[in-house]
């Protein structure tokens, strides 16, 4: 019974809701409230004593790996990073607790966004059992309290459909653009540079970078260059120069991590093999933790 449940993919998806996506008020409201969910300060300077920027990158990269391996919804990772940044902006944290915090943030984001959320046990295994499920649950309370239970943060993903809808792209290209933009958003979340940027700017920059990148290989857009940036900037009320700068930064981050990214892809396929093995309970090593 349990085995059966584990193997069926029971995820049910809602159809895109035109009432939400085709109404400009939704976009305007998102733009109005998004700043509320930004971290309060650049915490490496003013709050954290033990944690260094490279540690955030480490924990963010690990979180991204876990989310990818667990095939989490795309929003889970950026949302978890949002929790992480907001918590760290207020609470001095020793580095040895950082991974626990990352796990808690994924736990919460997954529960908010997914029909079948990550379990505490699973997350603890991903920390190589350096934390216990009980600790995860206890700290969940602390993180919730410190975030004042404001979990429904605005993420760049919330803007993607609104932006894509207003672009004059042929619809068959949209899914590819969407996919690339989502990858850029995840990439931005791993980099602290983007932590203080409004999500709408990251979303707009990611769509812009996605279209520019794809344009090199095939014709995905009738708009290019400045015309594209102008249109994008208008959609989300972003300053054109800020948007350009943001898009350039995204492209730099992409270049920097491209090599790393390919490596990750390699790791990803390897882990999928292991995943297949694991579902076969004949492997004794797998059972013995």
């Amino acid at each position, binding site marked *: 019974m349990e085995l059966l449940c584990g193997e069926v993919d029971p995820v049910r998806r809602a159809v895109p809701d035109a009432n939400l996506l085709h109404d400009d008020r939704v976009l305007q409201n998102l733009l109005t409230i998004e700043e509320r969910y930004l971290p309060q300060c650049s915490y490496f300077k003013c709050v954290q004593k033990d944690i260094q920027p490279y540690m955030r990158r480490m924990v963010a990269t*690990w979180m991204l790996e876990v989310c990818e391996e667990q095939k989490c919804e795309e929003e889970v990772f950026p949302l978890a990073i949002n929790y992480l940044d907001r918590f760290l902006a207020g609470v001095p944290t020793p580095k*040895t*607790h950082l991974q626990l915090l990352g796990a808690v943030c994924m736990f919460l984001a997954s529960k908010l966004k997914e029909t079948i959320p990550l379990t505490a046990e699973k997350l603890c295994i991903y920390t190589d059992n350096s934390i216990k*499920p009980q600790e995860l649950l206890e*700290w969940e309370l602390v993180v919730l309290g410190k975030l004042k239970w404001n979990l429904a943060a605005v993420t760049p993903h919330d803007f993607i459909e609104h932006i894509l809808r207003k672009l004059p792209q042929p619809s068959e290209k949209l899914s590819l653009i969407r996919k690339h933009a989502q990858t850029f958003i995840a990439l931005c979340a791993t980099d602290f540079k983007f932590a203080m940027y409004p999500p709408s700017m990251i979303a707009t920059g990611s769509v812009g970078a996605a279209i520019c990148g794809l344009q090199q290989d095939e014709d995905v857009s009738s708009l290019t260059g400045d015309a594209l940036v102008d249109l994008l900037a208008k959609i989300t009320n972003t300053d054109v120069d800020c948007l350009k700068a943001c898009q350039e930064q995204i492209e730099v981050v992409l270049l920097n991590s491209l090599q790393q990214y390919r490596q990750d892809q390699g790791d990803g396929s390897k882990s999928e093999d292991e*995943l297949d093995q694991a579902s076969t309970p004949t492997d004794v090593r797998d059972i013995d*933790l």
Partner: protein
Amino acid sequence: MERLVARRTFPLFARTSACRSLFGPVDHEELSRELQMRLAELSAEDQRRWDYNFQQDVPLRGPGRLQWTEVDSDSVPAFYRETVQVGRCRLLLAPRPRPDGAGDSPPSGPPADESLDGLGEAPASPSSGPSVAPAPAPAPAPQESSEPEAVSPPRSQEPLAEPPHSGISGRPAPGTAATATNTNAAAATAAAAATTAAAGGAAIKKLSGPLISDFFAKRKRPAPEAKASNEVPAGCAAPGAAPAVGSAEQTPRKRLR
């Protein structure tokens, strides 16, 4: 136990390169101290914000920002009333007759957990009777319903019994974490709701109904009981429901012993 837990989740995925400890071993004792400290911070914040001592379930005495007024639990919608979980159902408890002596049992002595600073600020004096009717969180049906009156008087002992949260570590890991948490959350909601209404239906002037910070503060309380009550009443559904058992639970048992 850990092994069992691991086994249950294990077949779902194998250990991959993502299974790694990033910053070395975790000092669990230090982690636990930090946890208590952070929880105490949050608790103090809640107390300040609501002028309410959530540990002892009494409004703060001093002239604060908010003024708490007692409301009869009958006068509030069912949603705010105390419920009890029996199996998968949630039953509404009959409104409890108001015990006369309720106000006569003020919290005696300082709270056991000094880490929760600010606790002592609000020793509700006996005379502040109207402040709070005995407002235990959801209690196990068998005991509570059979002996509703018994609940209130000894109640004051309850907050002192265990430092909040100490119970969590002792709790048997129930089901998957998600389930456990959900159960907790449900309990917290129930507790908060129950308290808002039943607890002498303390309602605030401008803020009515349980608010999110209530949930948090309340959630801390059921935990100690969970530990204290190793024997879960048979009526209680799952082991996961143990933490859901409200604060009142301990009281009747103490009484019965």
